[in-house]
């Protein structure tokens, strides 16, 4: 009997155990809901089930993020599929009653949320909100580690890379670099030691995709990293996760310990000669450490500053060895691709951008939360169909994507399909997946200044254009916003955008002007109306 057979046995036992329950109550215990006392709610539900001797009928299960983070804590009752939001511990009794009778508990029942879920395609988030993130058994029930078994026993490293290349998967960290190409570059690099790094240093304001994935499905990341390591020939991996994500770190640590015990990490994984271990490194709060060379410097214990590329990490990375760096969401896509085949994955999305993308939908929108949509969906569908439009019937003015590196897309361009190229063409970018909706009360100048302040304080200070340019742009935006700016200030601002964009050392500085450039392009009037010498601008 192989190790994988034993795992299959565990999965069957768990499946049978779950099948005996008449009802299941899924309680979201990701950060958003946990911050609203979801843990107390879960304890209360479990206590009630015990008190009423329903342990064999009702299963209270802690699960990951369901997506609607602003209205937590969330509970889903299965198999009826009733969804409850803003559940307090004191509502527990009513919910248990509802689970028993099958009648929805009206005060908290949210039937209209189906629209939020119906328009989504869940690949990365397929287990989020339905699988217990702290249970390997539950992950195994949902096809967990099937992909790793296929990869290690049925495929060669070259075949895996070919499969990833064929899937058309592109890096989800922002740049959109083809993942298969990155893998093959690292695979080709000659060295006895290679590393795989999972970049979980998510830092964009308003973005929480990676946190949710790590909190909801940590084993998926470990599986993706292990497959990647086998494909490129690495034996050691690091997950660089920011220290501000304690729950994600806790769940990752638990998952790593468990995976080691079950021969899913460590030496002779699944009984094959392949060895791979994973270590967690905590980020100390610098946004720039999401840049790959700065991240590597940080893991090495140095000041987190980028260095010029080339050489790229694929050639000269951690400790000078070839290193594969992929984002959390990219690695979360690996297992489904290997399990279901590249053709299946490539059937989602557009010609150039395959698959799905997870977005953190925030701002002035009715349904705030985490969504996963196929590439090519229009912004309008996201904002209005999934997000439910702006609250209080206000008009949507613009959508900001890509965080401090992205831009604002005005309402009249919302029919733009979401893919890497389209967003770049209008001066924004996909970024890691932050999406902020702004209604007609928003000042575009304020938005630009907010992001510039972020880039200014997060600039590492190494290169001059980023260190000084962001400060100068921030000051100029402040002058214009407070009504004392002149047309000359605006010209200087444009000039600084140009020099910072084209001469900065890393992506942070190169993309820092984007929020200003895009608002200047689409909302120039807002800038001009605030100048003291509007006449000069007209000339």
């Amino acid at each position, binding site marked *: 009997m192989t190790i994988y057979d034993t795992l299959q046995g565990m999965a069957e036992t768990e499946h049978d155990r779950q099948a005996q329950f008449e009802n299941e109550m899924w309680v979201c215990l990701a950060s958003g809901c946990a911050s609203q006392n979801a843990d107390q709610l879960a304890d209360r539900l479990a206590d009630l089930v015990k008190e009423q001797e329903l342990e064999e009928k009702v299963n209270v299960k802690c699960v990951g993020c369901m997506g609607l983070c602003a209205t937590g804590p969330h509970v889903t009752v299965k198999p009826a599929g009733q969804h409850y939001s803003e559940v307090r511990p004191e509502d527990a009794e009513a919910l248990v009653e509802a689970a028993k009778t099958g009648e929805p508990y009206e005060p908290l029942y949210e039937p209209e949320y189906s629209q939020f879920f119906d328009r989504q395609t869940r690949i990365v988030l397929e287990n989020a909100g339905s699988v217990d993130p702290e249970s390997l058994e539950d992950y195994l029930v949902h096809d967990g580690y099937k992909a790793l078994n296929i990869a290690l026993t049925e495929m060669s490293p070259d075949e895996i890379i070919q499969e990833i290349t064929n899937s058309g998967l592109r890096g989800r960290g922002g740049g959109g670099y083809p993942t298969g190409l990155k893998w093959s570059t690292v695979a080709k690099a000659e060295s006895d030691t290679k590393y795989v790094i999972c970049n979980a240093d998510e830092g964009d304001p308003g973005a929480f995709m990676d946190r949710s994935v790590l909190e909801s499905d940590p084993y998926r990341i470990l599986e993706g990293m292990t497959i990647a390591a086998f494909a490129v020939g690495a034996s050691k991996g690091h997950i660089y996760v920011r220290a501000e994500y304690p729950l994600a770190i806790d769940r990752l640590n638990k998952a790593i310990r468990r995976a080691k015990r079950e021969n899913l990490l460590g030496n002779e994984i699944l009984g094959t000669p392949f060895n791979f271990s994973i270590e967690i490194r905590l980020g100390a709060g610098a946004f720039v450490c999401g840049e790959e060379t700065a991240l590597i410097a940080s893991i090495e214990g140095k000041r987190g500053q980028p260095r010029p590329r080339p050489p790229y990490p694929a050639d000269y990375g951690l400790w000078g060895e070839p290193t594969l760096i992929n984002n959390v969401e990219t690695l979360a896509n690996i297992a489904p691709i290997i399990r279901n085949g590249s053709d299946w994955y490539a059937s989602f999305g557009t010609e150039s951008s395959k698959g799905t993308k997870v977005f953190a939908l925030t701002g002035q929108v009715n349904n705030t939360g985490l969504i996963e949509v196929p590439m090519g969906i229009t912004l309008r569908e996201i904002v209005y169909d999934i997000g439910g439009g702006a609250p209080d019937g206000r008009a949507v003015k613009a959508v900001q994507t890509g965080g401090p590196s992205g831009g604002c897309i005005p309402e009249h361009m919302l029919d733009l399909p979401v893919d890497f190229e389209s967003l770049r063409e209008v001066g924004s970018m996909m970024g890691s997946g932050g999406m902020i909706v702004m209604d007609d009360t928003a000042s575009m100048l304020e938005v630009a200044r907010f992001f510039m302040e972020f880039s200014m304080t*997060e600039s590492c200070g190494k*290169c001059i254009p980023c260190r000084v340019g962001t400060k100068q742009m921030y000051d100029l935006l402040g002058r214009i916003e407070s009504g004392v700016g002149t047309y000359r200030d605006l010209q200087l601002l444009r000039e600084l955008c140009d020099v910072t964009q084209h*001469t900065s050392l890393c992506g942070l500085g190169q993309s820092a002007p984007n929020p200003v450039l895009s608002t200047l392009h689409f909302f120039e009037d807002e800038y001009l109306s605030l100048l003291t010498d509007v006449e000069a601008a007209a000339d």
Partner: protein
Amino acid sequence: MPVRSRVKTFTMDGQDVSGHESETILEIARQNDIDIPTLCQLDGLSIIGACRLCLVEVVGWNKLVPACATYVEEGMEVVTNSERLQNYRRMIIEMLFAEGNHVCSVCVSNGNCSLQYLATKLGMDYVRYPYLNPDRTVDMSHERFVMDHNRCILCTRCVRVCDEIEGAHTWDVEGRGYKSHLITDLDIPWGDSRTCTSCGKCMNVCPTGAIVEKGKPAGEMIKRREFLGYLTKMRGVNNNE
């Protein structure tokens, strides 16, 4: 098997040049008397590509590349002095002047300052960006040297020479973005530093009047950098490997 060529031939500003694959664009430019301005780069110290003054264009490449950190390639067409590059370089120097408190007339390094020299050479006649007038300190606690943060441009030559050549690593950078500044040891007065050997290498590699000897009147501070070439040559070290 075809034999791999280690010498690359290419053009720089239309001139045919050649270089070994281990040489950078900057090295080849200097061999051919093509002047590319630099500030953070200093022969003998590691390359960091931070000041962005040596950025050059390579025809067909979509980004500007730092000449100090880019190895030569066969057939590349390098442009070192286009109008666009001249503008960017002047703007970067202007940014430096606006960032610190640089008052040449009262500076001991007046006339012997790389920042001043580059500003003159790149045609900076005035600074168009608002002066930030930061509130910076002067550390006079060391018995022989002065660190004037007002004149520091964060090129980190002192950090590198202290770490790579002297081996003391007394200097480092603290803070992020425009709040970055140099510190000695764990941010204690220089005079209290227990790692500083008072060798003076940081003072000699400093391009401006930020690190200077005590007791020099305005315009009299002349830095001596010859030691770096001897030391690295005698030790046979290459800090970029």
